């Protein structure tokens, strides 16, 4: 391949990178090294340490865990690996239950967010121009305000003498306040409320690109609007639905703040269990084992799925 062809080829491919050709040697390596070193030290290394400590035992010490490597009699290295933390995760049903319950709560919340967010995204995509931007702005704005405070707002609405119960009692619908706060329902509301923008935005980005001519064609061929929606719009919007659902599901599974503030004592979620293991029981090795289990059962599958998806998109 001639030099010219090579250049043409590289500019044709998206993101081929002019810096790949022009900046070579020490300068290029240094530029890569800066973010690389940061992420290596502050993102990758910590997991190795968590992995190590998950094999340690709880000890009344500072920091509160036993050393894995000890020089016994200063001659040979003694390695103590405690597998008890992992066994503990399976022996005590609370961990398996919390993991399954997290998946359940995240899945149901994601479904509600999809059912609520889809018509919103469709409505925004079909709105006329100055309105469309205003509506989009209104979807994004809550995201920029404090997450903690948005969750806090629901305490005043859901509690026993809160706004919903006061209103229903004033209207005479109920005589006794409904238990809403500190239930799973409150957790669903909190998650849907917090992550709804993440559902609407990718859906909107997908729906906005649809060619309305397709729907007109379906109408010309005698399809009723709802049937045209089911056969044309819905299948085309599948990538947007997957993207939005992942953006809600992923943070919801590991959520701590929402189940802690809105959920009850029996609302088990894995993020909350890890928090309590660490802050209340001060058991760092078990907390580390929970983190490693979460990583393997949750984060790795999600990353593999995303990797697989981006591969598919490239093809």
């Amino acid at each position, binding site marked *: 391949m001639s030099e010219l062809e090579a250049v043409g080829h*590289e500019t044709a491919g998206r*993101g081929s*990178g*002019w*810096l*790949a050709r*022009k*900046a070579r040697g020490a*300068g290029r390596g240094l*530029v*890569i090294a800066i*973010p*690389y070193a*940061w*992420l*290596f030290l*502050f993102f*990758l*290394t910590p997991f190795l*340490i*968590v992995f190590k400590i998950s094999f340690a035992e709880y000890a009344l010490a500072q920091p509160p865990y036993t050393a894995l490597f000890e020089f016994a009699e200063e001659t040979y290295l003694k390695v103590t690996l405690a597998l008890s933390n992992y066994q503990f995760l399976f022996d005590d049903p609370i961990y398996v239950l919390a993991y399954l319950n997290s998946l359940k709560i995240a899945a149901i919340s994601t479904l509600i967010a999809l059912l*609520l*967010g889809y*018509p*919103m995204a469709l*409505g*925004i995509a*079909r709105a006329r121009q100055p309105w469309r931007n205003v*509506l989009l702005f*209104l979807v994004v704005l809550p995201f*920029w*305000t*404090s997450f*903690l*405070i*948005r969750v*806090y*707002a629901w*305490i*005043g609405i859901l*509690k026993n*003498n*809160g*706004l919903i119960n006061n209103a229903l009692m004033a209207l005479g619908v109920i005589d006794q306040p409904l238990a809403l706060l500190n239930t799973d329902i409150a957790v669903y509301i909190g998650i849907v*409320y917090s992550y*709804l*923008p993440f559902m*609407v935005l990718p859906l909107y980005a997908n729906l906005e690109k649809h060619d309305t001519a397709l729907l007109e064609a379906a109408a010309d061929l005698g399809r009723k*609007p709802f049937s045209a929606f089911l056969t044309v719009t819905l299948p085309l919007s599948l990538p947007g639905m997957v993207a939005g659902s992942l953006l809600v599901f992923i943070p919801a*599974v590991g959520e*701590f703040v929402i189940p802690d503030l809105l959920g009850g004592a029996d609302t088990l979620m894995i*993020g909350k269990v*890890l*928090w309590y293991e660490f802050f209340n029981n001060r058991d760092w090795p078990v907390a580390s084992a929970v*983190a490693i289990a*979460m*990583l393997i059962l*949750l*984060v790795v599958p999600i*990353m593999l799925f995303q990797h697989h998806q981006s591969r598919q998109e490239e093809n």
Partner: protein
Amino acid sequence: MVGRRGLFLTSAMAFGFAFLYLPILLLILYSFNASRLVTVWGGFSVKWYGELFRDDQILSAAWVSFEIAAMTATLACVLGTIAGLVMSRFGRFRGRTLFSGMISAPLVMPEVITGLSLLLLFVALEQAIGWPSGRGVTTITIAHVTFAMAYVAVVIQSRLAGLDESLEEAALDLGARPFKVFMTVTLPIISPALVAGWLLSFTLSLDDLVIASFVAGPASSTLPMVVFSKVRLGLEPTINALATLLVLLATLTILVSAWLMQRQERNQRRQAARALAAEAEEAATTD
């Protein structure tokens, strides 16, 4: 289009937006409530704002949080821009797969895991080399930069992917060095993305409770940590006042930055049009 379906979409949107905004509006409304009981209206008053500004714990935590957020946003923009540039303009290099994994992983990592792992790293580092001695603003900032730079990298990368490389190529062909090309060509074009990345990092840092709780020392509490400990004990009218101020701040920031970006875009378009016109005129006179 209007009809039963239009009606359905409109009412779904109305419900959705009411769901998004009613809780915030109620929060704001009740910040002006004279009664201590947060859910019972007792007349108009601004006394909770006065109480908020006398609450030293909240004020000092707010100062710590803004300080951390500003440092985080700035550092995350530098590192995230470099990372985004590496991902979209550096072609293949050894370790690229690991790099792209480390850039995208913080986006899907549960906060409790990030917080715990960074805390264990800081403890191990302190034992091994004596740094960081104790935990506080520095450790929180490092933790926040680590996840915020991933968001900035995504924003910058998607901006660069949608950008024609021919401008940068042209500057290179005219003999500019790569660093100069980046500073004079790439950086001005991606500056709106950079502003968005900075604001995003600032917000993420200001908002974070979980990671900060793990890596903060006993002496340094951030604003979300103080709010969380107050909220856990029950409703607190000063928190409503604080919430109102934060919502106001966020709305103003977003409106102003959107307006600035629009103006800059318009200016750029006008300049480009002027340059084209001048060129056309020149071409006409030489003919």
